[in-house]
């Protein structure tokens, strides 16, 4: 299945906008993604292994958080996952 990679994270997947993985569930698809591209892991997951709260994962057009089985939801080849990060644009006067 296809996983759409958002612009801020493409640098960690060799600049691709989508990655193909084989998986039976959402969770497996994400594991396959981070195995193939380990640099991506810390941007998607916290040290405790939880999906970071400023990153949303959608199965087709539904937020995985709201699916009854969440990451255990089964997926078909023609399904797609999208990773949607929060963006704010503009200039960030953060710390430095």
């Amino acid at each position, binding site marked *: 299945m296809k996983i759409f990679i958002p612009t801020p994270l493409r640098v960690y997947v060799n600049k691709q906008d989508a990655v193909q993985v084989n998986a039976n569930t959402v969770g497996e698809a994400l594991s396959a993604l981070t195995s193939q591209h380990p640099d991506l892991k810390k941007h998607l997951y916290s040290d405790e292994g939880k999906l970071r709260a400023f990153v*949303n994962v959608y199965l087709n*057009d539904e937020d995985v958080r709201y699916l009854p089985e969440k990451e255990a939801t089964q997926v078909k080849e023609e399904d797609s996952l999208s990773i949607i990060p*929060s963006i704010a644009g*503009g200039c960030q006067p*953060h710390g*430095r």
Partner: protein
Amino acid sequence: MPTLTEEAVAQPQLTNEEIARYSRHLLLPEVGLEGQKKLKAAKVLCVGAGGLGAPLAYYLAAAGIGTLGLVDFDKVDESNLQRQIIHSTKDVGRPKIDSAAEKLQALNPYMKIVKHETMLTSTNALDIIKEYDIVADGTDNFPTRYLVNDACVLSGKPNAYASIFRFEGQASVFATEEGPCYRCLYPEPPPPGLVPSCAEGGVLGILPGLLGVIQATEVIKLILGKGDPLIGRLLLVDSLGMKFRELKLRKNADCPVCGTHPTVTKLIDYQQFCGIHPEEPKAATVQNGIPQITPKELKQRLDSGENIFVLDVREPHEYQIVNIGAPLIPLGELPNRVNELDPNREIVVHCKSGVRSQRAAEFLQKSGFRNVSNLAGGILAWATDVDPKLPKY
């Protein structure tokens, strides 16, 4: 059925000039005289008079919004003119709010403009927002996004939201009673520095134009009560592929702000929420354990023959614009190419303005490099203080 007198009191009248001006709206069944009167009665607050604010405010003025509030404390910079079309070359250096108000009033003299030349903060946000019916968030940083969201939920005002990054954008309508709020979608902000700003990552000039007009469209639809607003819907715009996608947004029953048992009942410290620590009052010589070196200092030390390795962590296309001859390892590649660097040598890292190089320096230090400094202000500061012949971008 209200009597004619009640209707006249509830809705403002349109002058003959206004009727002529808004003729094309009046001809639309979805707007008509009733709709145009609603637009005239409406009070909309535009937070930000920059990339998103420019087209947003322009089209709201064109549409006949009766009262438009503008919030911005910034000054027009030349680099804004690639996308902030409400400002012109002669406005460079001028407060954005004055520049914007002038153009908006020229477009629509019947509109009342209220200038709030201030940063929106937890102390003033609720007072400012309560005077308006709808808020359109065109800000450029995460703390303010969360501030605007929370203030809108607490005040009961819908928030027409859009945000941009490089060539992609998002749009939605948050903070309606039945719909989700920004925190339902993103309960947590990203850590500072993870998502580059436009100044660092660049942005396609047309992009805020596209998203700003989508925002204006949503504001107008909410006022008219027509069409399907983006409530519970996240519109994703990819301007390079010219693709528009839509994702479902659900209201989170456990949302700390708009859920059934809210825990955030007043505005908080949003800088702290986003992990941003206040800047030290004096110019810091050390930041997060990394010594800061000024361009003048570095030049002096290099000229005196010191064995310093200067590392550039920008992108190849930036190197082509301007460089100071330092070897290039783009920030994203640094973890994989760290073995190309000599841990026994003093390394000074630079980028465009000092932000990415700071992150690179912190990474190198964590990887065991004992002698790493950050060039404060980056190549921009070098071009200002050491070599004015270099272009700035």
